[in-house]
């Protein structure tokens, strides 16, 4: 049930991602593939579009700072308690970044349209906000189900079908199935993309789909294009119950990334120097 080349190294995992690709990624601490993100920077790819699912943080900030990402569709870029992403802010203020303004449920809904092959999905709210001005690709129609003679504007969002979903999960089995557990938005992302590139903490000994306890939280191998085992693959972000966010590192990142020079030093130390970054 799979044609995955199982358990590759990071370079092989990321091989399919070329310049200009679009990638959907999960929200901070929900399975962000940070080790793979560093490898993506080392790979030297550019002009990526990053779709946050629905928000993003350190991952997109690093990718923006490193010149890898030129377009984002995120409901917010935030490092949570550590503040806004410094490189995101700098790029946005300098007009160096294409920002597709959105709102959390719009990302969820457009990915659901994507997973279905639907051209669009309706969503309440939004009408009268300035998001509409920034999203000429969104449409407002009169709800065809409103009572006769009434006018009920509703937004239609075009489907999002990213080229890839990239995320970190707890476990994968040798068949290519991936256990994402309760983080089910990852499943929608993988369905919408059709091609998931996944790093995992470890290998599950058995068939995740054959175990009725594990199956409900399992992304089937049908959607999985590549797998790589990366212990602590979300570091310095936290991951599930396995490890917390490395708060001192996050504070150091935010301090460094306030300036281009500081960010360049961070890249050198933690990303480009493979020995230190692994």
């Amino acid at each position: 049930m799979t044609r995955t080349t199982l358990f590759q190294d990071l370079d092989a995992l990321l091989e399919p991602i070329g310049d200009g690709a679009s990638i959907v990624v999960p929200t901070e601490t929900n399975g962000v593939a940070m080790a793979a993100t560093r490898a993506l920077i080392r790979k030297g790819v550019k002009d990526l579009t990053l779709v946050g699912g629905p928000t993003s943080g350190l991952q997109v900030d690093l990718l923006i700072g490193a010149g890898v990402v030129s377009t984002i569709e995120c409901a917010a870029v935030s490092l949570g308690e550590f503040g806004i992403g410094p490189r995101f802010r700098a790029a946005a203020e300098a007009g160096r970044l294409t920002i597709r303004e959105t709102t959390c449920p719009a990302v969820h809904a457009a990915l659901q349209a994507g997973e279905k092959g639907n051209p669009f999905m309706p969503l309440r709210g939004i009408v009268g906000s300035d998001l509409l001005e920034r999203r000429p690709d969104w449409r407002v129609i009169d709800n065809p189900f409103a009572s006769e003679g009434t006018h009920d504007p509703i937004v239609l969002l075009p489907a999002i079908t990213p080229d890839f979903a990239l995320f970190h999960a707890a476990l994968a089995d040798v068949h290519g199935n991936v256990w994402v557990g309760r983080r089910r938005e990852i499943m929608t992302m993988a369905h919408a993309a059709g091609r998931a590139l996944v790093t995992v903490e470890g290998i599950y000994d058995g068939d995740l789909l054959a175990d009725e306890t594990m199956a409900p939280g399992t992304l089937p191998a049908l959607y999985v294009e590549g797998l790589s085992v990366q212990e602590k693959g979300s570091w310095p972000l936290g991951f599930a119950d396995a490890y917390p966010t490395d708060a001192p590192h996050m504070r150091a990142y935010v301090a460094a990334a306030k300036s281009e020079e500081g960010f360049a030093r961070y890249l050198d130390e933690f990303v480009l120097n493979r020995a230190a970054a692994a």
Partner: protein
Amino acid sequence: MADYSRGELLATVLADTVGYARCITVGAVSPIPAAAALLVRETAAKPVDVIILGSTRHFPFTDGGREVFDFAGRGRIDVFFLGGGQIDGAANINLVGAGPWDAPKPRFPGSFGSAYLYYLVPRVILFREEHSRRVLVPKVDFVSAPGSSPPEVHRPGGPAALVTGKARFAFDKERRRFRLVSIHPGHDLDEIVAETGFDFDHDADVPATPAPTDAQLAILRSVAREELADTYPEFVRDQLAGPATAA
């Protein structure tokens, strides 16, 4: 004023704005609203569900990040808290950036779920600790979500109140303006007027925000302290005085 922290005061003010609710939901990185929600739950006559995004213990959903929005879309969330990089006198909120959209200064993180939840949740409490003309502006530079909508727009929800570090306002839906309800201890009307960038209604004599009661403080320092320790360890340590120091 020495007997309670700033976080404790603001939690009680937020709790007072909630009113009747069956389900209160609190966004991520919002320790004070989370404490307020637990305070309401502990003092309400009827059961109240408290959902706290970012918490494991207080997050009962299993259908991905969309479920909280679906839940709100079905009218199942009565109260939500929203912030804003800018908030204006018509309760429009801006989470995107100050200045022109394509050259903001500063850029804010983004709209999060505001462009949806502000419409769907019946009582949205605006909360921003900073009370300054930088935040409370005559007109927001970008409308992440408007304070009100024309009658044809499906909008069961909207703003009910605004709480800052200095004062509490109520939003008058008919007049589409804020009314000053009370001023927190240590501040006065002149300061509120000086630091607020928009016009608002107020009586000649504006009452002081009441201090937290002993009963409220007891709940914050026991139940809230215990239940928020995982999600907000620093807030709990710094703001919710433990039983030993509360006496």
